[in-house]
């Protein structure tokens, strides 16, 4: 009961994935340990968003080959909802608004789905309200948003905070944050970062997918990986992010060109 296997949370080997017939991930390898925070960076179009969506189980993303082991499970065999029940959570880049379903009803349905999966009894309305109120306080969210329809008419920051609230209530083992868009405003990023820091725990793993280093001004990652051309091309500690901030991604294109001509 010791050693590498026990500590390993996620193990991706030779992952090839495509969207609408175009191959995006081209043999991606990645290992993430329990309780670690990993940042995945890279230029636009490198496959960051695809990786996040493949891990969350979005069906439009076709896995062509490779394996993904999560807590000893074959992740690719699980449907999106089963993955969530097994403790995977993806914070969406652009959370979907769902008119007609209140945030409270949505969150309680989700929490109860997880509890049923674990053979636990469903939480009643009163206990749920107590729980969700304390979590709202924890993530600094306005209580009024609980009775509003899911993300409907929410500001960018409120949507992000709502994702963090869901994370706080559902208590995932592995949280994947999709922050690939370079256009996100700084306040929204700060909300995400604060949320991660508040929810960071020894037994909770984070994968933060981001284009810019600035998110990492607020979150100190254990490992930083550079994704390019559908593969991890460089890995390092937090200093790699700083290096990328200075140098940009242009060096990758030179490497790619070399690799291309060599093949």
């Amino acid at each position, binding site marked *: 009961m010791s050693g590498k296997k026990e500590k390993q949370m996620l193990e991706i080997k030779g992952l090839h994935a495509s969207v609408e017939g175009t191959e995006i991930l081209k043999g991606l390898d990645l290992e993430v340990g329990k309780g670690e925070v990993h940042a995945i960076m890279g230029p636009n179009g490198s496959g960051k968003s695809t990786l996040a969506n493949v891990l*969350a*189980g*979005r*069906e439009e993303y076709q896995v062509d080959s490779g394996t993904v082991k999560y807590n000893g499970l074959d992740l690719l065999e699980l*449907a*999106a*909802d089963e*993955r*969530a*029940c097994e403790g995977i*959570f*993806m914070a*969406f880049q652009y*959370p*979907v608004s*769902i*008119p*007609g*379903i209140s945030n409270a009803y*949505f969150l309680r*349905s*989700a929490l109860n*789905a*997880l509890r049923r*999966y674990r053979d636990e009894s469903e939480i009643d309305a009163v206990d749920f309200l107590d729980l969700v109120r304390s979590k709202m306080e924890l993530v600094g969210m306005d209580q009024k948003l609980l009775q509003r*329809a899911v993300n409907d008419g929410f500001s960018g920051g409120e949507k992000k905070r709502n994702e963090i609230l*869901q994370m706080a209530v*559902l208590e995932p083992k592995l949280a994947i944050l999709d922050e690939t868009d370079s256009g996100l405003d700084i306040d929204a990023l700060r909300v995400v970062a604060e949320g991660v820091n508040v929810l960071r725990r020894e037994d909770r793993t984070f994968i933060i997918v981001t284009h810019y280093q600035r998110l990492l001004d607020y979150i100190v990652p254990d490992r930083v990986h550079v994704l390019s051309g559908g593969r991890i091309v460089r890995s390092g500690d937090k200093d790699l992010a700083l290096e990328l901030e200075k140098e940009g991604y242009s060096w990758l294109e030179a490497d790619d060109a070399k690799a291309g001509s060599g093949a």
Partner: protein
Amino acid sequence: MATNAIDTWTDSVSTSSQSYEDSVLGLKQRRADALDKFAQVGFPGRKHEEWRYTPLTSIASGPCSALLERSGSLLDRKLLPVDSNGVARIVIDNGEFRDDLSDLSAVGDHVQVQSLASMRREHPEQLSELLARSFPADDHPFHCLSDALLDDGVFIDVAPMSDVDGEVASIHIIHYLDGSRGPGSVHTTGLLRISKGARIRLIEEIHCQGEVLGNIRWGVDLAEGSDVHRIRAFRSGCASIFHGSRVVQQQDSRFEDVFTCAGADLVRNEIHILHEGSGCHAELLGAYVASGTEHIDNHTTIDHKVEDCTSREIYRGVLSGKSRGVFTGMIHVHEGAQRTDAVQSNDTILLSGAAEADSRPRLEIYADDVKCTHGATVGELDEDAIFYLRSRGISFEQARRMLVRAFTSEILIAAGSQVVSDFIVEELQQAIDVAEVASS
């Protein structure tokens, strides 16, 4: 064959019609004219533009030409959870206004309710005038039947509240159409007159048993500054129902209607709004589900005749099996009706490939300073929303149910009562679940 069928109807309607005795010429004439007209037009088929998607051939050849027998004992049905405190009740059983089962003690003296049967006996002149005012003669088959077979119904006359009357008066109207002793039809006329500044809430529900044709029409007359809020629930298991309302609004009046249907063999839901005075608002909302071979046709016309009036119309349907949903929404902005603001949308979710939705928004605009928008969507559930829910652990099936529920429940927010709204949303949802299980 078709000719024979309509002859059966004409003979039957003629016999029934001639059995009524009218004490005043106005009523007599109205009945005779309508009978003649019906004999000419019969039930229109596909070639008639107004009935293109809902031909009445099945009604014509159906077994409902005779009048339903008066039933005596009521169908045992669970009613909408309307708070009986402070809400009056009107029971109309196979077309008969049931004095013995109605309870009007909850409404104040400012609301007068009379059955049309008693008006025919006691105030025929007044009835004749009210009918002439509310229902101008036309060649609409169901209007003709209503006039030719005018028997019973209700007249609700609302004066403004005095200070002692308290809450806005609410009336719960329950129609039972019981064909368990043989098929037949029922023709019910409702007249609603709201005086200047008066208000009323109506909750109307319809229950059917067996093979019946319900023909219900309302003439609604809103005086200046008055306000009508109406919910209509076609409860699950309805047979063939025509429900038509002609609503005339004077200055600054407000009419709000929430139509719901939890499945019916054939429904034609018609509303005609006429804005006669400026500053009026009409709100027409609808949520309906259909399965199997059910057919729901919503047919609305809004005549913006004068300036500064607004209307908002949202109809939403969920169709499964081989069912069909039809929506025709005419917005007519007359010359001079400047600053009209009209919004219309019709959205349909298809849960099966064999279901069909036909949506026809129609705008006729003869004024230049107006805002009119209309839109129609037909499709499946939003994939992104389904994935969002699933990514939080909610199963595919539950995600679908939640989204369908959300789609209809948004309409019911306007029902004004959380308990009634929840009840109807649940009934709509159950109708969908049953249909889904049946088709899988």
